[in-house]
């Protein structure tokens, strides 16, 4: 799930690319660019993973009878993977369903339902070999027909969030029950095996697209390490360890997700021992948990950022202030913004100043501006830019004006309940006023802000504050947001540049990570310098757990839980 983050309920984006994270590590010193190199790396990459999976039983502690309790502040919308939009649903579903491939605790690729895979030499086909002993929780065997059904059905009826990863799908061949060959019309730098859950054909194939659209999936049948026992709506979700799971069984006998509607009460529940770990802790509550008895509060880098978006729409109906189409003004705003102050005051220090739209937590792909390129906390430079652009006159309020007397005054909107954004917007107002630009702040609820911003034909706004959560170690999805074709889709500032679009298309089919990084760096730099998006910060992922109930939590960029790896759930062990 991907989307705009409100700061409290984060939505994770399943923008996952091929085995590329792994490949970067594997061949970062190599200059190989031929797709065939990637093809040969595919299977060898997974052989390590499958070895690890089969090693499991020798080193893993025996399964316990203990219950792991996870506290969170929201709950799933539905348990239907093809209609959900919530991080919470995806968290539950990734324990019930398998994808073909998954992420380990190092966020490198590991086998799930596919024990190995290989790219064809042209990069257009991926052959997956399935786990021989995989079973659905109702006892039926998992076969390549399930893979074929899932992929082709999602593609055919454009179902849910996964359809975007299968736009080039031609079809899935099943030479035998344990082999699925996924064919595309173009090379796929992105391997959809990392993101799409495989569904049981015998349950789903009788439904039409419309029926799937309203299917609540109350008793999911999956092949994953847990099965759903009960969902007490708005209260708790209980999963049991699956006896038929193909891999190393989880040590926890049960996982219970407990819903709290108040962050302070949730923190108190952790202190009381009612739950063992919290998925998300607000900065203010986090500081209160640091140092509490038997509790460890962990701060990890995240795949998220909050940003200022500037309306650069060229639509005839746009009611955005036309002055903002002048790049000098946008860059001046970027120079004026003191991002370190935002982190310290709005985020209580729990993050780092941002720049590119690929967060620093995505270390393999993040582009960092040089000191000379950096636009940040430099009012002198902002003033120089505005002076050079001719906005030297000021009105009686000290606000700069155009030569015809129009003041540099813009509307600023933010989500009222996302307090960090409101605070940031206020600080931004001060920074802008210091260089002679006036911002008028209005706060709205998220849905209203969404419909105001995403009005592609007649956007009636100037500047907003909002956020994105990537949540997965790949740049593809986020870099796809500023495309011309996403105007009317996810492109929330209506930026459009044919050169940028061409680079995007090029990186999407460049399988060699080194060559691809050159392109993605160029895209990040271009978008940064255009200054329609002023990334404010990369916030930390704040979580906390009890040290006296379960042991073995591994911190991961993006979070120990609520992340793209499910392995912490499988590997933590009870202390008593």
């Amino acid at each position, binding site marked *: 799930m991907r989307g705009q983050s409100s700061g409290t309920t984060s939505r994770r984006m399943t923008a996952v690319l091929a085995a590329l994270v792994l490949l970067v590590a594997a061949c970062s010193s190599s200059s190989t660019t031929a797709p065939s190199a990637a093809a040969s790396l595919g299977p060898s990459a997974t052989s390590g993973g499958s070895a690890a999976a089969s090693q499991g039983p020798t080193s893993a502690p025996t399964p316990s009878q203990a219950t792991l309790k996870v506290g969170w502040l929201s709950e799933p919308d539905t348990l239907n993977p093809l209609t959900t*939009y919530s991080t919470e649903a995806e968290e539950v579903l990734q324990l019930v369903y398998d994808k073909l491939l998954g992420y380990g605790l190092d966020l490198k690729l590991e086998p799930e339902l596919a024990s190995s895979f290989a790219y064809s030499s042209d990069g257009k086909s991926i052959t997956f070999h399935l786990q021989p002993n995989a079973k659905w929780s109702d006892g039926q065997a998992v076969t390549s027909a399930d893979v074929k059904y899932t992929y082709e059905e999602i593609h055919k009826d454009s179902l*849910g969030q996964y359809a975007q990863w299968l736009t080039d799908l031609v079809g899935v061949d099943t030479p035998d029950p344990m082999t699925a060959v996924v064919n595309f019309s173009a090379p796929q730098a992105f391997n959809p095996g990392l993101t799409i859950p495989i569904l049981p054909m015998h349950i789903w194939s009788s439904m039409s697209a419309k029926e799937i659209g309203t299917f609540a999936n109350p008793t999911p049948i999956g092949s994953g390490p847990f099965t759903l026992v009960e969902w007490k*709506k708005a*209260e708790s979700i209980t999963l049991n360890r699956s006896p038929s799971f193909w891999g190393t069984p989880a040590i926890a006998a049960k996982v219970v997700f407990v819903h709290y509607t108040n962050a302070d009460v949730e923190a108190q529940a952790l202190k009381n021992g009612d739950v063992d770990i919290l998925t998300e802790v607000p900065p203010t509550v986090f500081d209160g948990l640091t140092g509490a008895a038997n509790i460890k509060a962990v701060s990890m880098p995240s795949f998220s950022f909050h940003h200022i978006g500037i309306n650069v729409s060229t639509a005839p109906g746009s009611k955005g202030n036309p002055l903002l189409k002048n790049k000098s003004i946008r860059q001046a705003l970027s120079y004026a913004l003191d991002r370190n102050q935002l982190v310290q005051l709005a985020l209580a220090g729990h993050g780092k100043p941002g720049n590119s739209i690929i967060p620093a937590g995505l270390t393999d792909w993040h582009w960092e501006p040089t000191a000379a390129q950096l636009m940040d906390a430099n009012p002198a430079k902002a003033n120089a830019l505005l002076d050079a652009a001719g906005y030297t006159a000021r009105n009686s309020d000290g606000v700069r004006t155009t030569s015809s007397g129009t003041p540099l005054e813009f509307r600023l909107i933010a989500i009222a309940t996302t307090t960090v954004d409101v605070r940031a917007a206020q600080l931004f107002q001060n920074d802008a006023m210091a260089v002679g630009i006036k911002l008028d702040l209005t706060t709205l609820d998220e*849905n209203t802000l969404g419909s105001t911003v*995403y009005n592609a034909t007649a956007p009636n706004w100037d500047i907003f504050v909002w956020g994105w959560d990537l949540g997965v170690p790949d740049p593809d999805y986020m870099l796809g947001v500023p495309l011309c074709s996403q105007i009317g889709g996810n492109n929330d500032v209506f930026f459009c540049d044919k050169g940028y679009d061409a680079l995007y298309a090029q990186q999407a089919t460049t399988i060699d990570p080194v060559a691809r990084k050159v392109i993605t760096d160029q895209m990040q730099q271009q978008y940064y310098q255009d200054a329609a998006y002023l990334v404010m910060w990369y916030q930390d992922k704040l979580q906390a757990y009890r040290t006296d109930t379960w042991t073995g939590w591994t911190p991961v960029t993006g979070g120990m839980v609520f992340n793209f790896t499910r392995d912490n759930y499988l590997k933590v062990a009870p202390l008593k």
Partner: protein
Amino acid sequence: MFRLGYLARKLAILALTLLAVATFNFILFRVLPGNPIQLQARAGNLSPEAIQRLREIYGLDQPLISQYFIYLRDVFTGQFGMSITYQRPVVDIIAERMLNTLILLSAATVLVIVLGIGLGIVAAARRGSRIDSSVVVGALVFWSLPTFWTGLILIFIFGAFLNVLPVSGTSTPGVDFTSPIASLADLARHLVLPTITLALVDIGQFVVITRSSLVDVLTEDYILTAKAKGLSRRQVVWRHGVRNALLPVVTTTALYVGLTIGGAIQVETVFSWPGMGALMYDAVLRRDYPILEATFFIFALVVIAANFVSDLLYQVLDPRVREA
């Protein structure tokens, strides 16, 4: 006891009010900015085809006037359609939540009404005494406290400091109860703090109204007569005073029951109680029209019904109203 014409007129007004409320609800949520598909489509990066299918499934592709008649049909057949957020029938969702709200509120309402009226009577009977001023001041202080704050303080005292009572939900998660009795006992423990919070905050209005009404009555001539007849103080207050002082209390009770069904939103939020208030709050944020329309309609229905019942009760309690 009631004239048929009177009853028919009342019922007709009731039906018209409901239709007006239903219509108002439909318009209200559609003039709100935002729409239910918006953020889902963004979050899922949906194709235009998928967005169109969503609009068809929830009837949002129909002209507004057709949507209105489908909605009216749904409301008056008690169906309420499908929730856009949860993709399940609204009736099922409301049934789950309503049960939790009723459990919480019946406990709290009984406590509030019985204690509130009782304390009001005690205060009025001892008007001007130290007991009177303590009761009135205490009731007013708690009435003025923000509900969520009172809840958090109770959580702090009983959940954190003493750690003797659960602070959230309706049951202890992850526990398999061996018997229904153990399960009920667990529910009872979870009810304690939210019930006390509601009672503390809401008791004030009953204390004050009962007291002032009874104080008025106790200055009437017939009370003097009763005293002069040599009746005991208890007989004077209960038999001659309280019965006549109950009229405003009945109205307050009817209004209270009607309004609290709306869920004690704040108490439900503080104690993570999965009731109607929390459901409605989420539905507003997500623009889940079917849930909003259903919950608001049900609240209106309960308020109107409660008022109807209090009108009828007036007829029973007060002969003057009957004559009018």
